[in-house]
């Protein structure tokens, strides 16, 4: 039997890289869509290329863009994937206020371009859409579950709501095996450096190693439901192995403040964050979201999925990874890439 083929958009991101590793480990042929940039943008895939454990000859990268419909159509037709994971997006909430039109073009319209490319080619892959807890915004109930009404509070959240419904619509209109994973915040050592958890763990590591003194933060009372990205990509895969497409909340059902994140990260390296953190109102969001906390009981019942790495362990492992990364950079073991 020839191996299954998967197409991942957003393969260079945190989730895309973990998902690629998971699928390669299961014997898939993995195809990834990458945007052209004049700098290297595939650093998160380094593990696949350097770790002999991964069959790197089963990984294929293609230049493309969710803004480029014909290219998407051509790639889908050429690859003939069994599974498509749409993880690509302009995914930074704060930046979506700066560049809302671009965010909508990629995060919302990009999804329908991909679904149209699938419909046009006539192949019937299973489809995963990366929905987001940001769709709940001004929360209508606590905790949130699959039936909780959406009330997005950012251009990013609005765009994700569109992508969520258009995925449901293609499932209902065309019988596509399409699923939405409503993922609450999920972090890892590969999290983008401008996201708050990573910003904190990086800063704790830098300050510990004497490379930095101050950390400027926004609202410390913001709360989130934070899980471990490596476990969340398993839920994505499980959704596409079910007999029918469906929507699932993936979360930890716990909530913690930014303040607690500072406690754990700085505590991990033996520092008191109060001596280093300053508040800068520029980091406040124009509209803050409320208490985001996800009820993952459906995912547990139907997929047999539940989170294993909880908040303290997660922030601890991220801080350790940042300390190790910076030490390797200082020792010259990690080469500059540009």
């Amino acid at each position, binding site marked *: 039997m020839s191996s299954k083929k998967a197409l991942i958009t957003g393969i260079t991101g945190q989730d895309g890289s973990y998902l690629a590793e998971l699928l390669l480990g299961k014997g898939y042929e993995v195809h990834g869509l990458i945007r052209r940039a004049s*700098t290297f943008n595939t650093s*998160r895939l380094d593990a696949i290329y350097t770790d002999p454990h991964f069959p790197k000859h089963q990984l294929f990268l293609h230049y493309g863009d969710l803004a480029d419909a014909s*290219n998407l159509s051509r790639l889908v037709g050429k690859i003939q994937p069994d599974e498509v994971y749409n993880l690509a997006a302009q995914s930074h909430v704060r*930046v979506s206020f*700066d560049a809302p039109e671009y965010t909508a073009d990629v995060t919302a319209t990009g999804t329908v371009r991909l679904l149209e490319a699938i419909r046009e080619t006539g192949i019937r892959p299973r489809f995963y859409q990366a929905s987001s807890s940001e769709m709940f915004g001004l929360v209508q109930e606590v905790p949130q579950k699959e039936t909780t009404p959406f009330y997005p509070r950012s251009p990013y959240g609005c765009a994700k709501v569109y992508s969520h419904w258009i995925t449901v619509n293609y499932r209902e209109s065309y019988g596509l095996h399409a699923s939405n994973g409503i993922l609450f915040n999920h972090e890892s050592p590969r999290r983008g450096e401008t996201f708050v958890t990573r910003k904190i763990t990086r800063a704790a590591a830098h300050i510990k190693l004497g490379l930095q003194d101050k950390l400027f933060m926004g609202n410390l009372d913001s709360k989130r439901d934070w899980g471990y990205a490596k476990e969340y990509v398993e839920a994505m895969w499980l959704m596409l192995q079910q007999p029918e497409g469906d929507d699932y909340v993936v979360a930890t059902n716990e909530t913690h403040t930014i303040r607690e994140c500072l406690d754990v990260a700085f505590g991990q390296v033996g520092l008191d964050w109060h001596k280093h953190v300053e508040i800068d109102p520029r980091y406040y969001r124009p509209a803050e979201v409320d208490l985001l906390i996800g009820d993952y009981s459906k995912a547990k019942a139907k997929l047999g999925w539940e989170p294993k790495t909880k908040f303290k362990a997660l922030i601890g492992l991220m801080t350790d990874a940042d300390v190790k990364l910076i030490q390797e950079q200082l020792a010259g073991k990690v080469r500059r890439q540009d």
Partner: protein
Amino acid sequence: MPTALITGITGQDGSYLTEHLLSLGYAVHGVVRRTSTLERSRLRHLYGDPQIYGRSLILHYADLEDPTSLRRILVKVAPDEVYHLAGQSHVGLSFEIAESTVDSVAMGTLRLLEIIRDLPKPPRFFHAASSEIFGRPAQVPQDEATPMVPVNPYGAAKAFAAGLVRIYREKHGLFLVNGILYNHESPRRGENFVTRKICRAAAAISQGRQEFLQLGDTSAQRDWGDARDYVRGMWLALQHPQPEDFIFATGVLHTVQDVVEAAFSVAGLDWQKYVRRDERLLRSQEPFALVGNAAKAERLLGWRPGKDLQALVRWMVEAEL
């Protein structure tokens, strides 16, 4: 303090231009795309300096596909000069991702021109056009009057953009300049451009980090200069009393093979042992002899580029070691 806005600031030219303008006392604002990796390696030395970043160097998130954000930034920054360097700039890939290439390169330029037209005090505007607009040129070397005959989607998009710049200059009386730039290289060149690829490989092979190098047709010829000279040309073009188009080129053609031999020689290696031909890397349509006549830039701007390919390649290989 004069204020400049640069699109494409994270690229090779953007980073050298930023350094040049900062040294001249400018406040430099840059437009950056959002990415999930913080790969602004070419600006890292400036970005990490609190005396510069946030003071004389300020970055703004936007995208050439997001006109309202561009408008907001231009209104807020109110620059004296705009250097428009952003766009999907890889020729080979422009065949694969044609729609997004044309959208960023051509439509992105038009969006900026439309915004500038509406500003109360329109800035001087430099558009980084490319020798690829000449594609299959009717004359060798090319000058500012040579007709545009692009042969790839990137060249077609740049020709479209350069044409719009001329139209808006004439129709609306704006200070708009096309700099028709021939290939210009540096250690900061994108890694999938041929000179950088060769220089990286020569260094990596000499250090045992790579085994061999696969290349397409090494007889292809180009007019290659030093990127630092070209960003000086951009600035000079906007200081000229009249808005005009300028060719920036060395006027000298070399083959890819010349680069290969120079690079492996710097690395102390015999290229014949390490270079393999790969048919897949051949371009769909190779442009003809693209070599520029920069006499006008020399006469009106006093611009004289370095012409020593050996020195350029040496600089690029040594930066990788």
